[in-house]
């Protein structure tokens, strides 16, 4: 019987003052006790609508029930058959707008902490020896382009269905945004490496340093290298700039550059690691999505005295997950809401000294449905800062589409592909994740990868 408690079991987190200065994970994770205590709250609805809120359709009440009765192995198995990256999704998914927002309890009290439980089960699984599940039973080879969330999940699914799969990754290490974008304190590399290890154990081959579209053409994969189908999961990695004066001053960089230097290239270990990053005393991050939160919290950990968010809309329109926002607040990040950057100001040597901004007020909703920010006349101000980090969004990288005939992109540079199957206008080529949707979430990309894997399977092994 479910136990009535109105509040979620809180996620234990490290003390803000301490954690804001190191890169260790913020959340500690549930103990077995916490997990059992929280799992008891699940109502086990006859028609679990929480599952509808999950892009990969995890049978949520089933795995939670397994936790409640102490069957961790059972819970892990349920999770893994529907989500190949549970330890990652349990950490980075915006559950509050997905499964947890659909939870029947939300109407009366707090939802079940589905995300925390997912993470708990996946972490439990990581302490066990790897159970290898797949065996190659099919002869058609499949190529996956990009070892980010959608590519990893697509490859994992295809391997589970028995296909030999090779992932081609442009960088020197797999993971995509999970490696270069999301910081250690939110997603430890050990967790990512473990999940990738699971994939490799199921037979997925990962080849790094190969840029499809440059090193090899996509058509070569199909025609010369004998792949029966190709999945494109190249993400949305192209950083956008504002186009305001002073943007190329020394000390201005994209969040992608900042985070890549630190996460992928380990600049926090400089000079032991060779790639440096310059973090000054006062850092301003422009934007208020998850990437902006990652960048601003990373700046604190790299030793900034003051790290602030500059955003032209208000707290309500912010794109970041609630948890990240709260963590940032606790850690001492400052927020300049309704503040629009006009110009980066520099000194004679070309280094940033400030950010000239203008105050805004909110007007009618614009095309995006969010309130349109309107400048307030005569409200200019100068924020004294020595680093400006732009986290105003990314678009799909045009590298592959520029060099491949038969693919189509829309106005925003996103690949055209069927929403359900991921089929592109080009035969035998599928696509999914941020490359198709534009920058979205890990789990949406995972869902697209999973559906495309099924579509590839349906195409190659039609069900009679």
């Amino acid at each position: 019987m479910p136990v009535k408690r109105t509040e979620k079991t809180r996620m234990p987190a490290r003390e803000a003052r301490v954690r804001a200065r190191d890169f260790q994970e913020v959340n500690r994770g549930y103990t077995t006790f916490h997990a059992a205590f929280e799992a008891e709250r699940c109502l086990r609805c006859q028609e679990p609508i929480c599952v509808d809120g999950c892009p990969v359709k995890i049978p949520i009440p089933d795995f939670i029930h397994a936790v409640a009765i102490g069957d961790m192995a059972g819970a892990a198995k349920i999770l893994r058959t529907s989500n190949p990256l549970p330890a990652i999704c349990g950490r980075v998914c915006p559950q509050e707008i997905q499964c947890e927002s659909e939870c029947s309890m939300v109407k009366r009290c707090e939802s079940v902490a589905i995300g925390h439980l997912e993470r708990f089960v996946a972490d439990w699984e990581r302490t066990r020896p790897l159970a290898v599940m797949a065996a190659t039973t099919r002869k058609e080879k499949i190529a996956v382009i990009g070892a980010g969330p959608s590519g990893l999940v697509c490859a994992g699914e295809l391997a589970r269905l028995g296909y030999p799969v090779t992932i081609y990754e442009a960088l020197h290490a797999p993971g995509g945004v999970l490696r270069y974008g999301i910081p250690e304190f939110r997603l430890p590399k050990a967790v990512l490496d473990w999940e990738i290890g699971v994939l490799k154990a199921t037979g997925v081959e990962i080849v790094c340093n190969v840029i499809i579209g440059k090193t090899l053409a996509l058509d070569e994969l199909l025609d010369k290298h004998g792949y029966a189908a190709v999945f494109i999961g190249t993400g949305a990695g192209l950083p956008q700039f504002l186009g305001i004066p002073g943007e190329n001053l020394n000390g201005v960089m994209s969040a992608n550059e900042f985070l890549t230097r630190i996460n992928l290239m380990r600049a926090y270990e400089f000079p032991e690691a060779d790639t440096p990053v310059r973090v000054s005393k006062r850092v301003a991050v422009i934007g208020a999505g998850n990437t902006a939160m990652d960048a601003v919290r990373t700046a604190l950990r790299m030793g900034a005295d003051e790290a602030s968010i500059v955003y032209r809309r208000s707290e309500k329109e912010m794109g970041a997950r609630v948890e990240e926002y709260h963590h940032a607040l606790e850690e001492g990040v400052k927020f300049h809401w309704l503040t629009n950057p006009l110009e980066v100001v520099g000194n004679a040597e070309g280094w940033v000294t400030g950010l000239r901004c203008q105050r805004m007020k909110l007007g009618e909703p614009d095309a995006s449905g969010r309130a349109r920010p309107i400048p307030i006349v005569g409200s200019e101000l100068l924020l004294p800062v020595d680093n400006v980090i732009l986290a105003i969004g990314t678009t799909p990288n045009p590298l592959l589409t520029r060099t491949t005939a038969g693919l189509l992109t829309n106005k925003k540079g996103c690949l055209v592909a069927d929403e359900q199957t991921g089929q592109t206008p080009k035969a035998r080529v599928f696509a999914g994740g941020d490359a198709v949707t534009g920058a979205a979430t890990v789990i949406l990309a995972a869902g697209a990868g999973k559906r495309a894997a099924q579509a590839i399977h349906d195409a190659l092994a039609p069900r009679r």
Partner: protein
Amino acid sequence: MPRILETRRLTPVTKYFRIDAPLIAASAQPGQFVILRVREGGERIPITIADYDRDAGSITIVVQEVGATTKRVCALEAGEEILDVAGPLGSKVEVPPGGHVCGVGGGFGAAALLCLMRELTVRGDRTTAILGARNRDLLILVDEVRPLCRNVELCTDDGSAGFKGFVTQRLAQMIRGEGPGRPDHVIAIGPMAMMRAVAETTREAKINTLVSMDPLMVDGTGMCGGCRVTVGGRAQFACVDGPCFDAHQVDFEEAMRRNKQYAREERQAADRLACAAAGE
């Protein structure tokens, strides 16, 4: 991991490498580059592809020791492997066919002229290479470039080989009709200051000029924007849109300033490496 097939010291600070990299050799084009990494925790550094041999499946690069990472690369010998080699990256050099093309190679920039001059000569362009260095001993790959183009002009600051003076002075003479004569297209590869001087030399004569920009890079695939260069007032990513750009449109001053962003850290890393070497 790609294996080094052959190495050669060209000058005390430059080294020639032929590397087994069949996929890159098969698709490389003049003007493109590779990204190298030589150790765990190492930097990703861009190096221009000097040449490629599609049949042998090898590429050639020339590395100049300027910092810790390039020193580490130059310590490698034939038979050893390079941790990561990714490419070919960037776009190929585009020159309209049929004209007189002058490739200007300053210092180790001469290396990049190998495949470029060969391709242009083979397709029937009239080709001239101007190779410049401080003195005769620092001129590199002269014998290799010579058979690949119609004319080779050598320049040294001290006159120890060829023309006494800068590459730009010889180029100016050519523009006035001397030597191999006025070029229709100029492509300059080498130190930023030299490329800027070439841009100034050809600007008034309105000669199409390309320069191969060498900004700081991280990924080399268009992901970070660290390599952005202002060309004609617009930000361009050198690793994707370049590295070759219209010389008369490039904001060299900004590019040179941006290249020094990490000068302090680069010195620190080089000193550290030198100390480690001395301690051995």
